[in-house]
């Protein structure tokens, strides 16, 4: 399964308080990313803003609610709405998370961790196959930030994702902040995990900030990218070459210029590392 040409360079998340400024200033960005579920609407101001964004930039649709790993069922009605949005928007990238969020008909609207077992891998491979056949395109699957780890896991999340990509042809959305958050929360070496990945399967990189609660890093997407994550980004650029890269910011949204500065920093790193490669 081939993906459409993906946008090379750096993008930002497009959030409602920035709509007007983005459309007026048209900053030089490789793409804009939105949360798919915010656009499961028939019409109105949000859909109009997405149409305007789409006319000016490639769009990345980032889903937070499909819950690929829910053991009891995949929400077909949710997938149908996503399919309709994909048809309408013709995005450059479509992504979801390696997680579950619902069981027994109750949805927690959160990205909850899976045990990385053979059973879960078989389920996820079936689900990703199904989603890709419904959407008629490649899906990118993102590594998760997590606060608990399952005792039953038989492999690392990274190995799980690499195998999922091998079985289904899906791409990986490598979130370096999530990888760093987990490395701190669970005490592993993030750089080592990067080395285990195949660059060809990586379709996008996410960079974001987190907050610290007691002994735990919490993935809030509400701060600038921290130095260790920039270090990982340098390593990733060197190892995997340039990938579409997103500055992700969802809570305590700052001025647009802060996002643009972070995006420029990412572009500088990607260019510098490409020159060294």
């Amino acid at each position, binding site marked *: 399964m081939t993906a459409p040409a993906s946008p090379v360079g750096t993008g930002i998340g497009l959030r409602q308080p920035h709509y007007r400024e983005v459309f007026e200033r048209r900053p030089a960005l490789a793409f804009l990313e939105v949360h798919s579920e915010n656009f499961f609407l028939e019409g109105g101001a*949000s859909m109009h803003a997405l149409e305007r964004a789409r006319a000016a930039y490639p769009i990345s649709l980032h889903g937070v609610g499909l819950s690929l*790993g829910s053991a009891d069922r995949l929400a077909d009605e949710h997938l149908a709405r996503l399919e309709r949005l994909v048809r309408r928007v013709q995005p450059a990238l479509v992504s979801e998370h390696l997680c579950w969020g*619902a069981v027994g008909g109750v949805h927690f609207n959160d990205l909850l961790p899976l045990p990385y077992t053979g059973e879960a891998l078989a389920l996820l491979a079936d689900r990703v196959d199904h989603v890709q056949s419904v959407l008629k395109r490649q899906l990118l699957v993102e590594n998760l930030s997590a606060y608990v780890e399952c005792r039953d896991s038989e492999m690392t999340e990274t190995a799980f994702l690499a195998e999922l990509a091998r079985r289904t042809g899906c791409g990986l959305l490598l979130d370096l902040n999530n990888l760093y958050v987990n490395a701190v929360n669970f005490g592993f070496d993030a750089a080592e995990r990067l080395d285990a990945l195949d660059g060809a399967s990586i379709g996008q990189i996410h960079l974001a900030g987190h907050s610290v609660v007691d002994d735990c890093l919490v993935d809030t997407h509400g701060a600038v990218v921290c130095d260790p994550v920039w270090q990982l980004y340098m390593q990733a650029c060197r190892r995997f070459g340039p990938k579409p890269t997103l500055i992700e910011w969802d809570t305590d949204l700052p001025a647009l210029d802060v996002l643009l500065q972070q995006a420029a920093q990412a572009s500088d790193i990607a260019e510098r590392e490409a020159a060294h490669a």
Partner: protein
Amino acid sequence: MPDLLAFQVDFAAALRDGARTPALARRLAGETDIVDGRMAIYRANMVAAADKALSAAYPVIRQVVGDEFFHGLAREYQRVTPSTSGDLTGFGARFDDFLASFEHTQAMPYLPDLARLEWAAHLAYGAADAPGWDAAALAEIPPERQDAIRFQWSPGLAVVRSAFPIVRIWTIHQPGFDGAFEVDWSQAETALVARDGFAVTVTRCPPDQAAFIEASLRGASLADAASDTLEHHPDFDLGAFLARALAARLVCGATY
């Protein structure tokens, strides 16, 4: 039960009820007290998601009751009406019923109607875009068919009745409102929620117009809706109302 499903059932139980954490903790790595702290992060995320979704749909109620009380309402509403979808747009659909029955909102009996108004505005925000319908098109319908006209009202259009001044309460809590912050609590108001382009409008709707629109929304023909309305509101001026409704693009089509 397969292991993955059993794990998710245990995880869900621990999220909804902290006392159920020990059954889950056996499946998680790490010390019990650390796991407890980490599960508290997930629990806070869960309530934050409910708060955010309800705040998006009910910004006026949030202002009326205050952030802290609203957060408590979100927590309790989520407990009794858990989300069933990965898309939270529809999560607040039963907030009016919740506010009508919740013990700590009984002193604010106008809240359920205000919730119905805000929910109608929330639905109108994302309703399909519809072009207006030309008044000339109405004039072209042969006179003998006019009684049978059934209007198609623009998507998102709704009438919300109340014994309280809900339109006034809504208006004074809109961003940029700088008038007097006074409410005449003796006023019963009916709201007309509609779209003007991409903007959602909320206006006071006179009882006769509300009766006509409601009958028409239920599927009544022009003649039946008009006669129903005139029965209770003998001064209803159908022609003047239709001219205004068409000019405001409340109607997007008709069958006859």
